[in-house]
């Protein structure tokens, strides 16, 4: 076919301005550039401030999430996460103020007020999060004032989320906006206090595929109770009890460190970092928690749990490891926390990490990544598809872990793919998650499909 023969004069994969966003470990010691705004025209994989805020807050199950802006910003984020709820399903409704031309010209505040009133009348939610989008930021709607008035009028929390997308292309700014909204929500009224308990809060846990419930089971076995998770399977009432916890676990460094620090300052709650991706990480994290409580019985139970689970996991991992050892992997995910966890798990499976990167990593994160991967690994910040393609081919990668945007890029090249995104439906946390992850990695890396689709049986042998 004529079309097939068109090969563009070898387009440049990497734009010059981006050369400092890519480095090879061992070769240069200079720091990687990151967290810059995305370069115009470079087809970044990043989303926006609003989306960052939305993914953090969305799992609050009984709140109304009202997106103030034109229709698309809401439509694209409807039911985006595989977060599960044990009760209310309100968070899975997608509310948009659906701004029209006249609103953009004359201001959207009136419509926002009307929408809030409608929603309250219909559902009587305990709280409404009102998200600002780019257009709203530009036309200067005062959503803070509108929310304040609405709160007073209806006697519920109407909380502005200042997530105008164009403030920065970086989701981290959105995480921060979400964090501020959460702190506002849980702050006790003047004169009121929340009773202190021995329970803990679990920050950065979104109950994807029921992951929070799984960890909750482990903790229950140890004799520790979760107060509330930020924000997986949480309710407004439960979140308001957050100040009563004695400890905060922080799971996703990108989105929740700042919140943990603020909670420590405001309510004196200490925090520890945990990581439930991978069996080793899970065991370590459980031990850390047990140590914090310093109760011998808890420590004993924890060790018993770990021993039993490890006993179960080890042979399974070994089985997959035999098949996967020496295979070449690539990782491109949203945050450094996830990247580190995946690198470690793949290494446990005997795989070599050839290239890795994130959308939102900070310099410290990249240093940490640099420390655990072997020399020659390419590390890249805010990669574009052209770059991902280039390194997948150059490094002869067998399997990539990433988000949905990368999936079909990998598949077209005949490279296996594991989804590690917000919208996955199956849990990857804990001991069970480690087993599922290993089986997924095996299923895609060693799929019988690849050798078949890559060859053409009708091609005459050369010469």
């Amino acid at each position, binding site marked *: 076919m004529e*079309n097939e023969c068109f090969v*563009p004069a070898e*387009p440049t994969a990497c734009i010059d301005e981006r050369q400092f966003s890519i480095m090879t470990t061992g070769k240069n010691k200079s720091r990687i550039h990151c967290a810059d705004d995305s370069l115009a*025209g470079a087809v970044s994989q990043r989303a926006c401030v609003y989306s960052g805020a939305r993914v953090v807050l969305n799992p609050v199950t009984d709140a109304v999430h*009202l997106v103030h802006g034109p*229709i698309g910003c809401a439509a694209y984020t409807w039911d985006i996460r595989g977060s599960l709820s044990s009760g209310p399903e309100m968070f899975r409704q997608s509310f948009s103020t659906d701004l029209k031309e006249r609103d953009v010209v004359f201001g959207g505040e009136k419509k926002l007020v009307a929408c809030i009133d409608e929603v309250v009348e219909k559902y009587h939610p305990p709280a409404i999060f009102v998200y600002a989008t780019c257009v709203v930021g*530009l036309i200067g709607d005062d959503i803070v004032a509108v929310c304040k008035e609405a709160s007073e009028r209806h006697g519920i929390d109407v909380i502005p989320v200042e997530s105008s*997308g164009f403030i920065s292309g970086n989701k981290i700014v959105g995480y921060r906006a979400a964090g501020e909204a959460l702190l506002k929500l849980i702050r006790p009224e003047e004169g009121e206090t929340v009773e202190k308990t021995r329970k803990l809060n679990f920050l950065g846990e979104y109950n994807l595929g029921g992951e929070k419930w799984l960890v909750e089971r482990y903790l229950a076995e140890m004799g520790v109770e979760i107060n509330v998770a930020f924000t997986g399977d949480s309710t407004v009432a439960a979140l308001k009890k957050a100040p009563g916890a004695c400890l905060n676990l922080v799971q996703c460094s990108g989105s929740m460190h700042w919140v943990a620090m603020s909670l420590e300052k405001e309510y004196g709650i200490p925090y520890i970092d945990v990581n439930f991706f991978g069996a080793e990480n899970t065991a370590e994290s459980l031990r850390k928690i047990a140590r914090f409580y310093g109760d011998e019985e808890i420590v004993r139970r924890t060790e018993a749990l770990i021993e039993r689970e490890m006993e179960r996991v080890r042979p399974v991992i070994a089985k997959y490891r035999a098949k996967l050892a020496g295979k070449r992997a690539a990782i491109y995910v949203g945050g450094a926390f996830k990247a580190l966890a995946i690198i470690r798990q793949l290494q446990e499976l005997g795989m070599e990490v050839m290239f890795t990167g994130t959308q939102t990593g900070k310099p410290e994160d990249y240093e940490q990544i640099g420390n655990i991967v072997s020399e020659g690994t390419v590390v890249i910040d805010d990669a*574009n598809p052209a770059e991902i393609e280039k390194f997948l081919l150059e490094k002869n990668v067998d399997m990539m872990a990433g988000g*949905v945007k990368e999936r079909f890029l990998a598949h077209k090249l005949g490279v296996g793919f594991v989804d590690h995104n917000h919208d996955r439906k199956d849990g990857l946390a804990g001991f069970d998650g480690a087993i599922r992850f290993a089986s997924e990695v095996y299923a895609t890396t060693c799929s019988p499909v690849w050798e078949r689709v890559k060859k053409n049986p009708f091609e005459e042998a050369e010469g």
Partner: protein
Amino acid sequence: MTGCKVTSRVRQVNENQCHMCMPLGGVIALRGVEHSVALVHGSQGCSTYMRLANVEHFNEPIDIASSSLNEKQAIFGGEANLRIALDNVIRVYRPKVIGILTSCLAETMGDDVERFVETYRTDREIGEIEIISVSTPSYGGTHTEGFWATTRAVIAHYARPAERHGGINVIVPNISPADIREIKRLLDLMGLEYTLLPDYSLTLDRPFGGRYQKIAPGGTPTAAIARMSGARATIQFGLTCPDTLSPGLFLEERFGVPLINLPLPIGLDGTDLFVGTLKDLSGQPVPDSLMLERGWLCDAMADTHKINAAARPVIYGEPELVYALAKLCLENGSVPAVIAGGTRNSGLAALLQPLLKDALEEPIVLEEADFVTIEDAAVRTSANLAVGHSGGKYLTERQGIPGLRVGYPIHDRVGGQRILSVGYAGTLALLDRFTNTLLEAKYSSYRRQRKEELLNEKGVSDAKA
């Protein structure tokens, strides 16, 4: 019956959206232009979301560039960023065509994109590269309108008075790549010379093939687009396309190319209309092979008519498809319970009136609908089949109405890009899915249901009531 009641959304808030935003449709249409790249002028998030939506539907890697506006440019204008974006897109992709679609932000800023492009052209040596800008503010239209507006802008960009030739133009709405291929096959079978726009049948549904090409092969060649103004006629599947956005109307008014506006060739009537038009235009008889296909469809309709008559579907999505699907149902004896479009200005309700005048039941027709309204109507009318895109997932998940996926976007099933529903063969494939979904629901529940109806305390008296 006096036809149908039309309800438009009265509430301010839009709850569970039935449509997407305007530049998204433009992105799809641009994929149908050979060697083109779409650049969304706005903040980064919009274009990332559009990529995501398309990746999930087409199961293809899809690049959409962004001018990545930030706060500073939002106040001082986006020209500088747009220029950098153009530079980079040209450097990385070496396209022949760049389509600039504006996001709401750029529109609100009031950026004069046309002028920016003019200046860019004069002081950059970009040779043959064409830049087409389309205004696509989502607060003014949906992805459906974005698709039409972009297709029209592409034609307008290339159209010059051209010499008359014997070929025809075929303009398609947002349908699947598989549907486009089927329409092309019918055109070939009828021996017509044609230019189909936008032809993304290959660009958005690529066979597996080693190296990923940054610009997918395929698309309507720009030289062919330039010749559209000299065609003998235009067939456009755009009964619901507003005049101001109609590509076919543009060609008729400016260049005197007669416009034949047809419904999508879904269903027996719809396909007959299309094939009949091709027969008239080509002067050739309908080949036996095609009559065979027609015969198989008729046979299926005869065999399944009673099952299908029991369907009371809720049909929702883009108006052009919704109209064709409603026709398909009605010609098979099934009266839709709810017919809903996500856009306004499509004239859907008026088009439906004559079809519905003899219907035994009165369907609810909704325009500019959101899913909360659609769900509510579907429950009130006891709809028993949900026909449309993935947005209707709660109809199944929450209301237990079996779903049949067709349209755009589809992200909870595989193969959105290869759903076939046009022509005799495509209709047959769709109709079989339609009937089988009904049968599946029936077999999984009829024993229990009859038991519950008849073996209760009140016995058969309940059934009589």
